[in-house]
């Protein structure tokens, strides 16, 4: 790292950068961004590993230790069958994360392909894509989500299809705007005058402009997808009741809330929010990194 302090001269009255040195003492803003991404990814990976290792423990019933509040032996308490809630939560999170990210990925790829087509294949294709986007956005997406999950027959496949189908429109609209802008540019016109095909233009021009936004959009879709999977499972329209998806854990816990077993709903709920927050942090930092203005210190 260059000795930035000594190469910079006097700064006219600008306030000292209080937030510059975070807990790790880093003044390099880009390094901080990378570290935050690393932490977020590490946390998620740790959670997935823990979830995998604790899978057998999540199934272990112990009828002598039913509905126990959080303790040292069971940090998240136990449920009505004596199963350790921490283990169940971690397994459930892993499941939600897997389903959510798969659905979001399918959605994002569909969005990229549609946006690229709208940009490279001319006005009529673009009009068609716009019309389709508007159509899907006109329907309240929670209603659409429930209908599709129901129609696709529940279970993991149904959830993935439902989430994928309801999440591509907003990202498509974003990417399509960028694709149209590029398609209308002079440099694309110049390439076309040189005889390049629509395919070539999409590959050499469009893709480079779309990929950064696509990547950020993809990562930021994950939280939505994860939460929607949880919602579907909560409503009984998602994964089968035997798989401990977070939504199912939460819906099962509803029955025991009035009896005072708050830890059955609150702790898994907070854990879900923590996962969503971690993914969101990775996405936002990625966006900051890929922003062309991030070249400034």
């Amino acid at each position, binding site marked *: 790292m260059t000795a930035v302090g000594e190469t910079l001269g006097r700064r006219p009255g600008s306030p000292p950068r209080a937030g510059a040195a975070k807990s790790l003492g880093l003044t390099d803003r880009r390094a901080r961004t990378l570290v935050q991404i690393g932490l977020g990814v590490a946390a998620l990976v740790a959670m997935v590993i823990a979830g995998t290792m604790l899978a057998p423990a999540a199934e272990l019933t112990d009828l002598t230790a039913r509905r126990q509040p959080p303790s040292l032996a069971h940090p998240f308490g136990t449920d009505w069958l004596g199963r350790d809630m921490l283990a169940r939560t971690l397994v459930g999170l892993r499941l939600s994360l897997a389903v959510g990210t798969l659905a979001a990925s399918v959605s994002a790829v569909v969005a990229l392909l549609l946006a690229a087509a709208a940009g490279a294949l001319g006005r009529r294709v673009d009009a068609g894509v716009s019309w389709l986007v508007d159509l899907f956005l006109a329907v309240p997406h929670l209603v659409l989500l429930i209908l599709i999950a129901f129609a696709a027959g529940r279970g993991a496949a149904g959830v993935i299809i439902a989430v994928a189908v309801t999440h591509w429109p907003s990202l498509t609209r974003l990417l399509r705007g960028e694709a149209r802008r590029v398609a209308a*540019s*002079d*440099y*694309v*016109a*110049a*390439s*076309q*005058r*040189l*005889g390049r095909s629509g395919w070539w233009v999409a590959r*050499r*021009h469009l893709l*480079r*402009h779309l990929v950064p936004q696509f990547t950020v959009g993809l990562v930021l879709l994950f939280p939505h997808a994860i939460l929607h999977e949880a919602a579907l499972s909560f409503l009984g329209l998602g994964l089968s009741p035997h798989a401990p998806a977070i939504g199912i854990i939460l819906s099962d816990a509803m029955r025991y809330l009035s009896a005072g077993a708050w830890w059955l709903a609150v702790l898994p709920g907070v854990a879900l929010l923590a996962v969503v927050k971690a993914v969101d942090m990775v996405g936002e930092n990625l966006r900051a990194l890929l922003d*062309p203005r991030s070249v400034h210190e």
Partner: protein
Amino acid sequence: MLEARDLRFRYRRDDPWVVDGVDLCVEPGEVVGLRGPSGRGKTTVARLLAGYLAPDRGRVLVDGAPLVRGGQPVQLVSQHPELAVDPRWRLAEILAEAGPVDADLLDALSIARGWLDRYPHELSGGELQRVTVARALLSGATYVVADEVSAMLDPITQAQIWHVLLDRVRRGGIGLVAICHDDPLLDVVAGRVVDLSAPVRVAARS
């Protein structure tokens, strides 16, 4: 010969004609200046000549044949180089798209080798314009339309670019259409000048 016959163009059906019956012809080895009242009309003519726009009436012909996509005989260099290049391409790639790199041309335009690794936004306007001129000349085009290419440049960069363009014309390589609102510059570079606001054209229309 690059020829424009009775070119007419307007942006929408109810709009007035932006280009209203323009005739022009350029041979390789000559520089034809284009002068006129409003910037928009001249730029539209430039884009019509280079095939970026299709005329509503009239034709653009290269050696008697209409312009086709690919095998680009007419290149356009516009006033704003930052809009004419893909900001996510490195300069080396931008030049390579036109044709194999000619070291002599790059030297004549004072394009430093170090620039080739950089992105467009890292260069100043004058530096980027040198690159777009190089791109036009590397493409092997027979005709170049220069639309206010030096309007935003300092006198030295302006003179450098024009000298390279004029040198290519003199060597019998290309025909140049020079669009310029700076009369002294036009007097120095152009062999003859077509004036878009000349009253004789209005008479010819009716």
